[in-house]
């Protein structure tokens, strides 16, 4: 028989029990937890940075005290974890956990875990008929440390049942949220360094799960920084101007200056260069080049791509016949393209100049040629 989520319901004259009232709290918490688990990604929502402060022992050895800034996170059970005040990481706790190895270069993960804590029994309230109990539960947390490598299996933590509320954190392994990494000097039993990431594993931040995101005002913006951060990258989909996708830096008002735009007709506009984008097409360069030099490759094409057979070059050169300044303009000269070719990419260009005003004489000079260089993707890539 199917199990349903139940919520308390009250009626006139009802004698309301503690379970009824707790049920209203649990129903709300459960709904929020399921929303967090299935419509969002768990992680750090705000703050919780690890902040080092340089210190020295009496013997002059340097170390750092590490503080965790106030903030909030959501764990994988949907539990909100609020750190209301900055607090210090405990080097005593690190030492007691015995996670360190004999390597001062090792980095150890720092975890935040939510764990409910029953109020002190001295806070118990005695009700009528001698009944009593605790009237508050602290949604507490712990900062702990893991062994080197413990940060690698955070994605394998066990998600609660579909209808469960947030975890109370009362198991032996409450959900772990990575805050960063520390290094440890066992000789002085102190932290010596802090970092946000280690070997590609970094602090995880909250996110959103969605197959569809729909704007209300005709515009959706995804930002890498807060709206007021000058230069932050932003991506915009808008219905303005018949619709467009734009990417670029934002100004301090959050307005985007597009460096790439795709309009509703599929036209692509970029303010920079399209680099290395053969993509089945051809890259072209053209200009003038003097004897003995190499015809330059188009932007984004490398000699290694040519050597590896990934790119095929076609080069066309024609003599550029224009009298150099050394010739007196009063004299009549005619040019004979004596040589105009390429060897590989090397230009070999010479021109013979003849006098045509009755004066016998000729001069062979290094030439200049007009070139067109086309780079094509080779069929099947490199050999």
């Amino acid at each position, binding site marked *: 028989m199917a199990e349903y989520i139940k919520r308390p319901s009250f009626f006139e004259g009802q004698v309301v029990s503690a379970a009824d009232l707790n049920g209203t709290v649990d129903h709300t918490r459960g709904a929020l937890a399921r929303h967090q688990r299935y419509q969002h990604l768990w992680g750090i929502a705000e703050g919780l940075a690890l902040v080092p402060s340089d210190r020295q022992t009496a013997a002059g050895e340097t170390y750092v005290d590490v503080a965790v800034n106030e903030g909030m996170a959501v764990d994988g059970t949907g539990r909100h974890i609020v750190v209301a005040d900055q607090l210090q990481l405990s080097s005593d706790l690190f030492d007691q956990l015995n996670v360190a190895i004999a390597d001062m270069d090792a980095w150890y993960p720092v975890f935040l875990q939510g764990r409910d804590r029953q109020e002190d029994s001295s806070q118990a309230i005695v009700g009528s008929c001698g009944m009593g109990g605790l009237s508050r539960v602290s949604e507490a947390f712990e900062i702990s440390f893991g062994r080197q490598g413990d940060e690698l299996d955070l994605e394998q933590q066990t998600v609660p049942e579909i209808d469960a509320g947030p975890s109370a954190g009362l198991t032996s392994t409450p959900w772990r949220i990575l805050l960063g990494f520390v290094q440890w000097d066992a000789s002085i039993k102190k932290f010596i360094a802090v970092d946000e990431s280690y070997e590609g594993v970094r602090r995880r931040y909250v996110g959103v799960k969605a197959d569809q995101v729909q704007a209300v005002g005709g515009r959706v913006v995804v930002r890498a920084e807060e709206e007021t951060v000058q230069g932050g990258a932003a991506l915009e989909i808008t219905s303005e101007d018949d619709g467009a996708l734009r990417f670029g830096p934002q100004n301090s008002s959050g307005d985007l200056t597009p460096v790439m735009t795709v309009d509703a007709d599929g036209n692509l506009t970029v303010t920079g*260069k399209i680099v290395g984008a053969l993509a089945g097409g051809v890259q*072209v*360069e*053209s*200009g*003038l*080049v*003097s*004897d*003995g*030099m*190499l015809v*330059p*490759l*188009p*932007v984004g094409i490398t000699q290694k791509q040519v050597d590896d057979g990934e790119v095929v070059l076609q080069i066309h050169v024609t003599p*550029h016949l*224009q*009298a*150099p*300044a*050394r010739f007196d303009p009063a004299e009549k000269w005619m040019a004979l393209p004596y*040589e105009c070719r390429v060897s590989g*990419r*090397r230009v*070999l260009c*010479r021109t013979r100049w003849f006098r045509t005003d009755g004066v016998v004489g000729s001069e*062979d*000079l*290094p030439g*200049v040629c007009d070139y067109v260089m086309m780079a094509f993707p080779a069929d099947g890539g490199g050999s």
Partner: protein
Amino acid sequence: MEKMAVVVFAETGHVLGALTRTADPEGALEPADIVGDALLIRDPDTGDRLLNVPARHLGVEIVDRVQQVLLAPRPFVLVDGLPDEPSEITGGASPVAHDGTKLTVTLVPLPPEDIEVWVQLEAPREEPVLRRVAIPATGTSSENFTLTPGGYAVLLLAPGYQTFIGHVAVP
């Protein structure tokens, strides 16, 4: 303003080659991008290789386009980013001589002050020999080093003078 790329001898600024690019006129270039291992200088009469100026001694500057520099780069020297056409080395005889044990460089007209010049000597199918020679205001200086007998192409790059390309026979 349209741009061009000029290949210069890095120590003196002598322009040895030039090119333009339509798609990427101002993009940065390394010497190897447009000369490979070395810039080839050829005998215009025969087309034979005279000199290979090593890329490590070259630089590439992106400057405003000057058509005459493109048509004939080697009379020019880059000064403060602008092509300048200094005077040719004159005097009739070759400014570079080598008697097998000693190189002698003679500049005509005389330099206005002490300068340092670069001389590249290269025999067919041999590695180039590149030397820096201090020339006083008297215009002549010598440096002792041995060369095997034969014909050598000569590249002389003297500040304040156009590029000189010639030949020297070592007895």
